[in-house]
C-alpha cells in the first residue's frame, strides 16, 4: 500500500527545513526526502559534522544554519536522507530510491525545495580535466576537507569570493582570481543599490573578502571579458582577455563560477509553469504569493523558484508551508497571515539586495552563450555550439526538436548542463523571447533509476 502524508517536502536545505518544521509544528504528517546524508542543503552542507561547526573559516553565514538544522531535528516528522527523488507526478505521487529500493509515496500537498545548481560555464575548454566549479570546491571542502593548491578561480558573484576567502583563511595558496563581472554592470546596478534599501552589511562583507584577497598578495584581476581553458586533455593554463589583450596563467586546477540558477527539473517534470527571468538570466518557476505553482497541490519555495539566497529561502519555505496548511484546512486564513507576517518582512529585506546582486552579477552574454563554434554545450553527448546553430538553421522549431536532431540534452544529466544555453541559443537564432522558446520536456525518471528497482515496484522479484 502506498504511504500517504499530509505534506511531502522535497529537499532539506533552508527552504525545505523551514517548510517542514513549520508544517510539523501545526501537527501535519510530514515526510522530508533529501538526497544528502544529513540536512543542510548545499549552503549548510555537512553542518552537523563537529569539525565544521567550529570552523570560522567557512564564514558567519554558514553558522546561521546551526539553529535551523537543530530546529529541524527537533521536529516531529519523517525524514529520509540519501533519497533520490526521480518522480513527481501532477497527481502528487512521489517516487524515490533509497538503499536500492524504489518506493512510491503520496501526499495532499507537495513542497518542492530543490534549491539551486551552479550555472554551467560553457567557455572553450570547460570540459577538460582539472576544471571544476566553485560549488564542487565547496563540497570537497565541507564534506571531506579536500582542497586544491595553486588553483585559478575565474567567475563572478559572492560565492566566488567566499570560496577564495575560505581558502585564504585555511592557508591554501591561490594562484589568481579572475573577476568576469562585466564592467558595465557596476553602473547598471548602482540605482538598485540606493533604490532598494539594500543590505549594506552584506555588501561590506563582500568588499572585505576582496580586500583580504588583495592584501594576501593574490593577483585579483577585474575587467576580464573572455576566458578559455588551454591544455591537451587536462588544464595547462587559463587564458584570459583583459583590456583587449590575451594572457595566460599556468595551473593544474581551474575553478569556475557564474552564480547559481534554480534547480527546476522536478518542478518542470511535474508540469509547473516556468518563465525566463531576464535579470537572473535563468528559468524560474511561476508561483503566487503563497508559492503555489500552476500544478494544483504543488508549491515550490526557495532557490528552486528563483535565486534569493539562504535567508530568503528559509522565509519562503515557511510561507509555502503556511499556505499548504491553510489549503489542507489546518489553519484559517487569519492564522496563516499572522504567522506569515514575520517571514514576509524577512523576505522583503532579503529581496532588497537581490535585485542589486542580480544586476551586478548578471554574466556577460558571451559567457552564457558561446560564440565559438567548437565550444561544447552538451557535455553528455558532446554537442558543440556550432552543431546546434547548424541544426537550428534547418528550421528546427524548439528545444525538443533540437534534442531529437542533435542528441543535445539526451544524456544522463537530462539537460542540467545545457538546458539554459540551449534555450538562449534558440532565442538568439529565432528572435523569439526565451519564455516562448521553452525548455526540454522533462519526464520521470528525472534521475537514473536501476531497472531492478523499477521492475520490483509492481512485480516482486521473488515471483
Amino acid at each position: 500500500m502506498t504511504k500517504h502524508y499530509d505534506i511531502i517536502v522535497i529537499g532539506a536545505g533552508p527552504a525545505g527545513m523551514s517548510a517542514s518544521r513549520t508544517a510539523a509544528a501545526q501537527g501535519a504528517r510530514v515526510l522530508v526526502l533529501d538526497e544528502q546524508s544529513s540536512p543542510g542543503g548545499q549552503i549548510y552542507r555537512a553542518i552537523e559534522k563537529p569539525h565544521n561547526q567550529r570552523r570560522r573559516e567557512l564564514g558567519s553565514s554558514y553558522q546561521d544554519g546551526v539553529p535551523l538544522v537543530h530546529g529541524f531535528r527537533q521536529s516531529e516528522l519523517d525524514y529520509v536522507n540519501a533519497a533520490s527523488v526521480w518522480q513527481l507526478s501532477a497527481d502528487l505521487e512521489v517516487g524515490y530510491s533509497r538503499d536500492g529500493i524504489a518506493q512510491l509515496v503520496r501526499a495532499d500537498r507537495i513542497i518542492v525545495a530543490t534549491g539551486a545548481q551552479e550555472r554551467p560555464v560553457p567557455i572553450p575548454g570547460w570540459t577538460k580535466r582539472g576544471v571544476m566549479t566553485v560549488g564542487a570546491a565547496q563540497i570537497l571542502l565541507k564534506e571531506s576537507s579536500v582542497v586544491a593548491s595553486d588553483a585559478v578561480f575565474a567567475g563572478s558573484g559572492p560565492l566566488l569570493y567566499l570560496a577564495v576567502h575560505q581558502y585564504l583563511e585555511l592557508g591554501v595558496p591561490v594562484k589568481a582570481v579572475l573577476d568576469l563581472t562585466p564592467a558595465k554592470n557596476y553602473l547598471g546596478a548602482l540605482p538598485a543599490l540606493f533604490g532598494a534599501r539594500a543590505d549594506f552589511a552584506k555588501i561590506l562583507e563582500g568588499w572585505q573578502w576582496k580586500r583580504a584577497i588583495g592584501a594576501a598578495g593574490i593577483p585579483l584581476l577585474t575587467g576580464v571579458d573572455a576566458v578559455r581553458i588551454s591544455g591537451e586533455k587536462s588544464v595547462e593554463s587559463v587564458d584570459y582577455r583583459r583590456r583587449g589583450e590575451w594572457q595566460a596563467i599556468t595551473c593544474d586546477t581551474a575553478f569556475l563560477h557564474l552564480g547559481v540558477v534554480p534547480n527546476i527539473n522536478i518542478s518542470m517534470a511535474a508540469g509547473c509553469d516556468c518563465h525566463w527571468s531576464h535579470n537572473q538570466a535563468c528559468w524560474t518557476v511561476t508561483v503566487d504569493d503563497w508559492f503555489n505553482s500552476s500544478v494544483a497541490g504543488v508549491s515550490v519555495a526557495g532557490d528552486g523558484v528563483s535565486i534569493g539566497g539562504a535567508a530568503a529561502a528559509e522565509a519562503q519555505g515557511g510561507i509555502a508551508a503556511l499556505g499548504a496548511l491553510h489549503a489542507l484546512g489546518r489553519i484559517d486564513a487569519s492564522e496563516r497571515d499572522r504567522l506569515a507576517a514575520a517571514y514576509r518582512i524577512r523576505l522583503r529585506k532579503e529581496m532588497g539586495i537581490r535585485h542589486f546582486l542580480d544586476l551586478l552579477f548578471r554574466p556577460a552574454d558571451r559567457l552564457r552563450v558561446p560564440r565559438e563554434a567548437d565550444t561544447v554545450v552538451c557535455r553528455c553527448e558532446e554537442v558543440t555550439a556550432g552543431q546546434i546553430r547548424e541544426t537550428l538553421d534547418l528550421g528546427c522549431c524548439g528545444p525538443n526538436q533540437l534534442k531529437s536532431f542533435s542528441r543535445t540534452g539526451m544524456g544522463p544529466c537530462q539537460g542540467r548542463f545545457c538546458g539554459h544555453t540551449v534555450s538562449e541559443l534558440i532565442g538568439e537564432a529565432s528572435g523569439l523571447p526565451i519564455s516562448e522558446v521553452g525548455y526540454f520536456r522533462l519526464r520521470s525518471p528525472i534521475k537514473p533509476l536501476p531497472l531492478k528497482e523499477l521492475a520490483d515496484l509492481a512485480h516482486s522479484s521473488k515471483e
Partner: protein
Amino acid sequence: MSGDRRDQDVIVVGGGVIGAAIAYGLTRRGVRTLVLDESDRAFRAARGNFGLVWVQGKGVSNIQYAAWTRRSADLWAEFNDEIKERTRIDTRYLRSGGLHLCLDEEELASRSLLMANMAEASEGVFSYEMLDHDELAHRLPGVGPSVAGASFSAQDGHVDPLSLLHALHTAFKSTGGMLISAPVTKLCYEKGGFEAKTGKGSFYSGKIVLAAGLGSRALAPQLGLNVPVRPERGQILVTERLKPFLDYPTIFIRQTEAGSVLLGDSHEEVGFDDGTDIKVMSAIANRARLIFPRLERTRILRAWGALRILTPDGLPVYQQSRECPGAFTATGHSGVTLAAAHTLDFARFVADGEMPAALDSLGEDRFHVH
C-alpha cells in the same frame, strides 16, 4: 515573401517522418515544396519511435499492405545510401534480421501459424524461421530461460529514427525545400489550387499532402478526405550504454549502435496523454529482465510516452481526394519502415497526380460502413 508563399507546387502538412519523407521525395524530383510543421510541443510520433524497419507480421490481413511494406524494406538500403550521401548523417540503418520473441509456448505456437500464413499469402517472397529456446539462445546469448522461442526474419532491420528524421529534414532543405513552423488552422480548395491558413499567414500551392498524424483527422474533411485516426500510447525506456550484446532487434528490446538499450512497448488507450505511467514502466522493466536477466543490473536513464496514429484496422491510409483532386493524404503508423517507399514511390504518385491500383485497399473507402 509573397513570392515564396504563392509559388509552391506542393504543400506538405506535417514535418514528421511521413511528411518529411514525402517532402524530400518531392524536392529530389525538382518539385517546389513547402512543409508546414507544428510547434515544438506537438504530439510527435516521429520523436517517440522505437526504430524498427519491420516486415514480419505486417499485413497479415491485407496483402497489398504486406507487399508495400516489403517493397519499402527492400528499398531501404538504396534510400539510406542516398540520404547519407546527401546529408552525411548516418542513420545507423542495418538490415540485420529481426526477432519477435515469444514468452510462452502458446504464444510461440500461434506465432508459428501466423508466419506460415504470411509466407503463403506472399507466395514465398516473405521468408522466416521459427526458433525454439535453444536455437534462440544460440543467436541471443544470455536470453532468459522463460523465453519460449522466437520468429526470425532476415528481411527485418533497424535504424536510429531520430537520425532518420534529422537526415530527411536536412536532405529536404539541401534540395531546395522550405519549412515553416506554423500550425495549420484551415485548408481551402479553390479550383486548381489550395490555400493553407496558419498563424504566420496563408500559403498557396497546386497540390497538397496531408501527413499531419493525429492532426490529419480534423483537417481531412476540409479537403474532402476521411482519416479516422485515434491515438494509442506506447512507452519506451532507455538504459545507459552497455557493451554490445544484442545482435538483432526485437519488438520489445533493441540495442542501438551507441550501446543504449531501448525497452518497449506498451499499447494503451489513454486518449491524448503522451506522458509516462509508472505502472506501465514497471511492467516494461519487468518483462525486459525476464527476457534478459542481465538487464536487471542496468540503470534506466530516460523514459517517454508517444502516441501511435492508428486507423480502425491499424493500417495507414493513402488517398487522393475525389472532391478536391490534388489533395492527398498519407497518415498512419509505421512511418519509419515505410520511409523509403514514401520518398521513392509515394512522392512520385503525388507528382504524377495519380494513386496506383496497388494501394487501392489502403484508401479511405474501407472505413465506410457497408
